[in-house]
């Protein structure tokens, strides 16, 4: 195992444990670690909203910037001061969640293959965030701004890009003029606009983007930041004075950490780190990785153009085009670059029902590595072998808790690429073919490796999404269990509990009528 794989594995385990721990308090839908991208966007909108107010009161003269911002904190602490603090703390939180988001996506291996585009478009955004953040500190023009401006220009001067040292602009009090702050404000607005544009590109290839965290999470985070703003309002340092070197700086370590790092190393070392990290991030997807799984395949005669796969695909990999053989009909077309090979489309296809009588079940869109026909055959074979008082079928996710380990004479297990590829009709089929109960397990809320697999499964089984579970299926014989990778024990306990419930409750009359497939051989 390479060092990279070992590091990534350790990081993934750490994230999984942290997420599972936080799930106990927040649940999957509100768990901040499971929605870092959405949190980042939320902090960005706070920055935009508070920034607009700060811009309206900003006087872009040398003394004016310091005094106008200081006035907010002193005279209008209840509004402008709070908004200023929110602006500061949201920017810090934005940097924090951005770094965690990047680390998490790397840890889960979500940076190559069909995710290449999202990864590569995300890397430049890190630069824009820091350019915007560092420039934002300069606008206040206090001693911290002075320190950062000089440290940044000294760092830039190491690069052979300016004919004259940029740090000469901050030599003495008469070195800068009012125009400097006009340009600075222009940059501090322009770079975040570029960031928003870049974020649009970053999420462009995924559908149903998690633009914001849950309302509960947003309210709680806003309450936390407001409390922080009131308890510890963001204040300016003493006004900048280029005749004096700033000492004892209350540094923002989230945004300005590069300055001390330059002091303890060198500009060359810091640029090597910055460019090295950037190149590494860009190169990461191109390192050797296991071959991509086969993508979804459309079978034209069995595709009726219903577009459910198009609606359910988490990566906008499916588009609808005119059907080549059926005039007036449409057909699903898979974009190989975007397809995650998750199988959610196969689960959404109405043709994926195992009740069809063909000997070989061919559906409209299928996964070559785990065709729906193979699933049916495997299910029939396993049900035929089931013994015991209460026979269960467990459908699981290869990325979630390992269901194969739970295989037993009274328990048949089927591991799917993603739980989202389970057509609800398979649940009915299992019950009508001899199973007493069905367990469907997948990753926890917000933890689905393919984003929407578990969400669509829940909705389909709850009869809120097509293809839905038919009313003939009694819900008391179905158990949905969220269990992440490594939660096999919890899953086993949930299955035992379900079995006990089936055995102790009076559910005998609720079982749907038995079904035996009439096999037709097509020639």
């Amino acid at each position: 195992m390479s060092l990279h794989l070992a590091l990534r594995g350790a990081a993934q385990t750490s994230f999984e444990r942290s997420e599972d721990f936080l799930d106990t308090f927040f649940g999957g839908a509100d768990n901040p670690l499971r929605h870092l991208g959405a949190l980042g966007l939320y902090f960005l909108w706070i920055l935009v909203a508070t920034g607009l107010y700060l811009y309206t009161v900003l006087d872009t003269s040398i003394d004016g910037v310091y005094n106008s911002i200081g006035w907010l904190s002193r005279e209008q602490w209840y509004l402008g001061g709070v908004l200023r603090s929110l602006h500061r703390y949201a920017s810090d939180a934005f940097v924090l969640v951005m770094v965690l988001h990047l680390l998490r996506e790397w840890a889960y291996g979500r940076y190559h293959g069909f995710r290449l585009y999202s990864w590569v478009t995300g890397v430049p955004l890190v630069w824009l965030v820091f350019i915007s953040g560092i420039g934002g500190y300069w606008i206040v023009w206090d001693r911290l701004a002075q320190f950062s401006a000089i440290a940044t220009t000294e760092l830039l001067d190491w690069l052979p890009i300016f004919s004259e040292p940029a740090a000469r602009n901050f030599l003495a009090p008469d070195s800068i003029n009012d125009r400097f702050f006009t340009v600075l404000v222009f940059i501090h607005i322009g770079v975040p606009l570029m960031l928003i544009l870049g974020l649009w590109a970053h999420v462009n290839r995924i559908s149903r983007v998690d633009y914001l965290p849950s309302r509960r999470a947003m309210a709680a985070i806003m309450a936390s930041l407001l409390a922080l703003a009131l308890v510890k309002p963001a204040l300016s340092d003493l006004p900048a004075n280029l005749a004096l070197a700033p000492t004892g700086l209350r540094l923002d370590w989230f945004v300005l950490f590069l300055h001390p790092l330059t002091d303890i190393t060198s500009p060359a070392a810091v640029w090597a780190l910055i460019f090295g990290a950037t190149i590494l991030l860009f190169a990461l997807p191109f390192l050797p990785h296991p071959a991509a799984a086969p993508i979804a395949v459309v079978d034209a005669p069995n595709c009726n153009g219903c577009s459910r796969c198009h609606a359910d695909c988490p990566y906008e990999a499916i588009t609808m085009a005119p059907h080549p053989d059926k005039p007036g009909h449409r057909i699903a077309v898979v974009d190989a670059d975007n397809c995650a090979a998750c199988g959610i489309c196969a689960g959404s296809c109405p043709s994926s029902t195992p009740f069809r009588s063909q000997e070989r079940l061919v559906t409209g869109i299928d996964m070559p590595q785990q065709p729906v026909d193979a699933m049916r055959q495997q299910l029939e074979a396993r049900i035929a072998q089931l013994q015991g008082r209460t026979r269960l079928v467990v459908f699981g996710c290869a990325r979630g808790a390992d269901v194969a380990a739970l295989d037993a004479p009274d328990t048949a297990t089927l591991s799917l690429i993603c739980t989202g590829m389970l057509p609800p009709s398979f649940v009915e089929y299992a019950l009508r073919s001899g199973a007493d109960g069905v367990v469907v397990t997948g990753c926890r809320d917000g933890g689905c490796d393919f984003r929407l697999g578990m969400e669509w499964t829940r909705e389909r089984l709850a009869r809120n999404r097509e293809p839905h579970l038919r009313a003939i299926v009694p819900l008391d014989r179905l158990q949905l269990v969220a269990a992440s990778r490594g939660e096999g024990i919890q899953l086993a306990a949930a299955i035992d509990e379900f079995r006990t419930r089936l055995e102790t409750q009076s559910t005998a009359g609720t079982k749907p009528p038995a079904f035996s497939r009439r096999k037709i051989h097509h020639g």
Partner: protein
Amino acid sequence: MAKPAAIAGQIILYGAFAAFIGYFSTAPTYRQIADDVALIKLSMSHLGGRECRKRTPEELAKLPPNMRAPLDCPRGRSDIKLVLELDGKPLFDTVMHPTGLSRDGVSTVYKRFEVKAGTYQLAVKMNDNLVVPGFNFVKEAQVTLKPAQVLVIDFNPDKGGLFFQQAKD
């Protein structure tokens, strides 16, 4: 987890998040220089000299009328030698090279020196045309530096060449 316990856990975790953000947004305090240290910033941007030759009347006559400049000056500029001494001891000694592919741009330097606060004899010598030996610009003065004070050494022909700049008491 029971709801009250989950809510309590959320309050604690969101509080920890806010505390983490709040603490590292201003702490720990960073000191770039020690309390008893002052800064000398040596920075200048100056065109080096060049040796021009006076054209002879015969040479001028051969040129088109609109190009009869009396002096023939090379495009390239001289390197600039710069020496900084503190209490008679060399603190910095460099040769600045002209920028530009044709070496016709300004020569620049930007250096920051940390010195203990106190009184020093500060001397800066510059030769902006190395064809000529010695230093054609010299500035020497006794300076008193207070803690955190910044003294700038710059060059401006309009201010008489080399000059020191520091905040007045």
